């Protein structure tokens, strides 16, 4: 047994700290919450206004553009239909809204952070351990501060998903920028590029395959987090899985679980296809 005398708790300090933050910065959190909520509602509204066959058409077109194979188009469309047939369409749209909001916010913060990391070595040495920590931390843990700051529902879900899914796009942006050949950069500099032009005209375009891979991974991470977020009351496919577990309803659990898998596959195929098209070396 570990000696009782050595027992020492920080839980109280953490609680006090969070409470203090909540009181001192209440308006800040409120406005962040309102901001996330606004983006989420706009996206949700936009997504809901598209009829179901609109999505089928969209996925079919995108699948055709990226793969040029009729079989891929048919498989993806059939899978999407399956979600509707399970009666989970609206919930899938809800889930999609959370994912898209979280991914957009991840990219808005993640790509500039990745660029900063590639440009400034000090930023890299500070951010690397933080990113490592973010990725090794169990995803449930993110729910705690999210819930404390933003209560229950979709806003904390977006926040937790955002934090959880940001590391890949930061890392891969950094990696992609660092992998741009020195000789290409040197040539651009010899013709009188400024630092900004070098970034905009040479480094970012050449890092694009990596950045796209980062966006793809970020999206996948966001999808994985959505199920976890159902625990703090985010409506969507995740909640159905959670309900099924509680009711030991294996069949329904399978349907909703499989729907999440379908979403993941469809998004993955399409974003990966675009990532390949961005690769300048494959032209």
């Amino acid at each position, binding site marked *: 047994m570990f000696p009782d005398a050595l027992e020492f708790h920080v839980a109280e300090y953490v609680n006090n700290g969070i409470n203090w933050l909540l009181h001192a910065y209440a308006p800040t959190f409120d406005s962040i919450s309102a901001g996330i909520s606004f983006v989420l509602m706009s996206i949700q509204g936009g997504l809901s206004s598209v009829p179901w066959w609109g999505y089928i058409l969209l996925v079919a077109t995108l699948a055709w553009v990226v793969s040029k194979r009729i079989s891929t188009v048919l498989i993806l469309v059939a899978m999407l239909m399956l979600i509707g047939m399970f009666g989970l369409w609206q919930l899938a749209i809800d889930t999609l809204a959370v994912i898209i909001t979280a991914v957009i916010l991840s990219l808005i913060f993640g790509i500039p952070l990745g660029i900063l990391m590639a440009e400034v070595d000090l930023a890299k040495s500070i951010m690397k351990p933080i990113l490592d920590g973010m990725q090794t931390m169990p995803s449930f843990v993110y729910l705690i501060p999210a819930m404390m700051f933003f209560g229950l529902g979709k806003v904390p879900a977006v926040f937790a998903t955002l934090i959880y899914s940001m590391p890949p796009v930061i890392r891969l942006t950094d990696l992609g920028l660092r992998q741009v050949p020195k000789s290409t950069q040197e040539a651009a500099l*010899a013709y*009188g590029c400024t630092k900004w032009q070098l970034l905009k005209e040479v480094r970012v375009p050449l890092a694009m395959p990596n950045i796209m891979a980062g966006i793809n991974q970020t999206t996948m991470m966001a999808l994985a987090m959505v199920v976890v977020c159902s625990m703090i009351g985010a409506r969507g496919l995740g909640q159905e899985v959670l309900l099924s577990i509680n009711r030991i309803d294996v069949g329904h659990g399978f349907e909703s679980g499989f729907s999440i898998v379908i979403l993941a596959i469809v998004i993955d195929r399409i974003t990966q296809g675009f990532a390949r098209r961005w690769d300048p070396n494959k032209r």
Partner: protein
Amino acid sequence: MKDPAILIEDLWKVYTKNDEDIDVEDQDLITSFDESDEAVVAVRGVSLKVEPGEVFVVMGLSGSGKSTLIRCILRLIDPTAGKVFVSGENVTAMNMKELTEFRRHQTAMVFQHYGLLPHRTVLENVGFGLKIQGVPEKEMIERSKVSLEKVGLSGWENYYPNSLSGGMRQRVGIARAIVMDSPILLMDEPFSGLDPLIRREMQDELIRLQEEMQKTIFFVTHDLDEAMRLGDKMAVMKNGQIVQQGEPSDILSHPADDYVARFVQDKRKQLKMADERAKLEVVSDNTGNDPSTKGAITNVS
């Protein structure tokens, strides 16, 4: 009197682990660098002068510091000590903004590994230098097309560099340089990656272009034949120093030391054989050798 196109005065480049300032006057320090591996002295006290309209060739084996030297001219690498003047302007004293302007208007560079942008078409690559200067798109396209025509690549405008052969890529590299209309052309082993036939073809092309353009060309190579064919003036580099400079024919006939002598040995033999063959065949015109090397033949034999 007109300023020399390029004037390099006592230029040093020392690579150290943490980029500290080095006093290059300190002989003991430099010797200690040579004996250890904590620092590399890439260029040591190089001085040279290139007149306008001249093709100046720096020849040396890999590791002789010639690539570092050419990069110091437009400060892609910052020299440790010494001065570089281009058309009378002190490049080593420029701040970042002046340097950017200088690179945009005074020099254009061709690289051994082309340095083309894979995500841009041939035309966009050629126009890259103009684009970052803010030249209007229409003018950029027009000038790029003219430049591509000069290097014989009309019709390839919309291809991507990766679908081109090495020789063609380097033509794009040259087109990108000459479109700038800058007085000085810097070429860092531009033909070294090409196979011998193409290399020769490209050298002819450059000679032809130079007759048209009359630019100042600073050319770096490890190939003696290339140096002899292209150079009006020539410098041989070894271990960061220039061991001999002068006209190619002089270097061939009067090598300054054993190192240069060994370098030019084969070339002399070759020329001697060609000369004897010519005598035997009683053919007066010795094709493939330009007049300057013919002077050397008489010296040798």
